């Protein structure tokens, strides 16, 4: 992570901590996913918008409970394994990993979420269950977009959703390529964007971009560092 602190962070008056500490503290707050940060003063203090964003700024908008017939139905069926939330008007389900396969299939079959927009992941290295997996779904008939989220630990795999949506094929391959998360029952679980022999998974937070570059120039160009 050290090299990432080299990234120029524009000097900001309201940024109380020194720039070098910006990254580690970013990690902590991200990992715990908490809002415990000292409430940043509304940026650009005097000129700051007094209107909408300013009051919301210190704590920020928080996820609210999301209520709809759809939620009722699944709450009834899955109980505590499922949480329905809404952030800035965007609705999502936080679902227990064990329910995922069944839940996604039900969403498509019973509730017409027939278009799988995207599958992606987010890495939180400090957390016990390191990865957030996100499915973004859309239903043409309801004109509704929802997200399904689950958490898994490093090394854990997930059931593939290729049988549910054909488009999941490449999307899951990309998640594997970038995060190293495997999907069980996927017809072709290989890297997609990076070459077969690539080491590591670039979108994990512990994958430094400079370290990889250094190794490459040392092997291929015989010099100490390209930077």
């Amino acid at each position, binding site marked *: 992570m050290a090299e990432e602190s080299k990234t120029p962070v*524009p000097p900001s008056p309201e940024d109380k901590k020194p720039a070098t500490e910006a990254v580690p503290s970013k990690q902590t707050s991200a990992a715990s996913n908490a809002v415990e940060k000292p409430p940043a003063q509304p940026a650009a203090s005097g000129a700051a*918008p007094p209107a909408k964003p300013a009051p919301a700024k210190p704590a920020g908008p928080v996820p609210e409970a999301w209520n709809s017939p759809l939620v009722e139905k699944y709450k009834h069926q899955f109980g505590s394994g499922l949480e329905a939330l809404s952030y800035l008007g965007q609705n999502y389900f936080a679902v227990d990993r064990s329910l995922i396969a069944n839940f996604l299939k039900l969403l498509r079959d019973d509730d017409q979420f027939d278009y799988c927009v995207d599958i*992606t992941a*987010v890495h939180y290295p400090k957390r016990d269950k390191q990865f957030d997996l*996100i499915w*973004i779904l859309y239903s043409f008939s309801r004109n509704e977009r929802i997200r399904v989220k689950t958490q898994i630990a490093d090394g854990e795999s997930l059931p593939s959703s290729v049988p549910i949506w054909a488009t999941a094929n490449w999307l899951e391959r990309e998640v594997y390529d970038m995060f190293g998360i495997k999907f069980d029952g996927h017809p072709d679980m290989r890297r997609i*964007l990076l070459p077969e022999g690539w080491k590591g998974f*670039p979108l994990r937070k512990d994958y430094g971009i400079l370290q990889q570059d250094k190794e490459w120039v040392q092997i291929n160009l015989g010099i100490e560092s390209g930077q």
Partner: protein
Amino acid sequence: MNEIKDDSAALKNEFTNLDLETPEKPYLDSNELIINMGPQHPATHGVLRVILKLDGEKVLGTECVIGYLHRGVEKIAENRTYTMFNPYVDRMDYVAAVSNGLGYCLAIEKLLNVEAPARANYIRVILTELNRIASHQLWLGTHALDIGAMTPLFYTFRDREEILKIFEKYCGARLTTHAFRIGGCQYETYAGFEKEVKNFVQFVRPKIDEYEELLTTNRIWLERTKNVGVISGADAIALGVTGPVLRASGVKWDLRKAQPYSRYQNFEFEIPTGENGDTYDRYLVRMAEMRQSLRIIEQAVNAIPEGPIMAKVPKVIKPAVGEIYQSIEAPKGELGYFVVSDGSTQPYRVRVRPPSFVNLQALDVMVRGMLVADVVAVIGTLDIVLGEVDR
């Protein structure tokens, strides 16, 4: 979907294992062949490599090898501030850079919970629709060239130039424009902008008819595109295909109508659709879309309001902890940004949902059983940009 191996050993096996005596493998069937198309191939629109399994001229299966242009855009985003990452998105779909920028700015605005002022939205709509026309013109020129019609390329590039001139005058760049900023637009329109846009609309409308005159009833064009690369609406939805490719299969869905952003609800326009889901229908849909874009531009330029062009956003952008997904109807389909903020100045994660990447996945379904020459037509009709496929 992916039973083909791309290594030469497999290719060798194919021939060394040939038993001429066995009736199950008669000699005539042995011309099953695995060949490479690309990555250096003029008809693959960049560095796309397609491994084709052929029986003579007939395509038995394909496998796309992508990633030659992978620059790790999503990783770059995590190491830049929100503002610094803005120009990078232009380098994904570089023929529709304005759309990319719009999607990104909208996503961060959503995360900040601000909205661009009305005038900024109108400028955005005008420029994005101009860019849609430019993107479709470039598609038409290169697609027709792939199929063997050389003239449309010169026509479309000649007319696309006028759009690029407007971009250049507006923000100084022709291709990777970085036209918008988080919260609105950086630049006010230049003197004479509205007049030039109106003139352009008048100028290009008959030109689109001209392209159509060259192709729509052209017998060679019909032969090469009708019933080529057919994909049904149901298949398209299952494969996540969006944009003109989806609409040509009869699914009337456009994000500008379904979930309007940037005040698209203020404008009247149709969603052109096709019936057969073949290459010819996709051509017609895109031609109709250019005309619809002209309609939108005309309405926007006539009704452009006065006022500020920048919402009040902090100088240093530090969204609250949270995650959002925002998507727009880019010329190629649904372009989405999934952004996670941890409350710092840099995004914790930016995921780009690229339309080209997802649409390309449909190539295999579309070319099976067709001829090699049709593969070129289908790659063209999918309108992929490898910068966006590989990111």
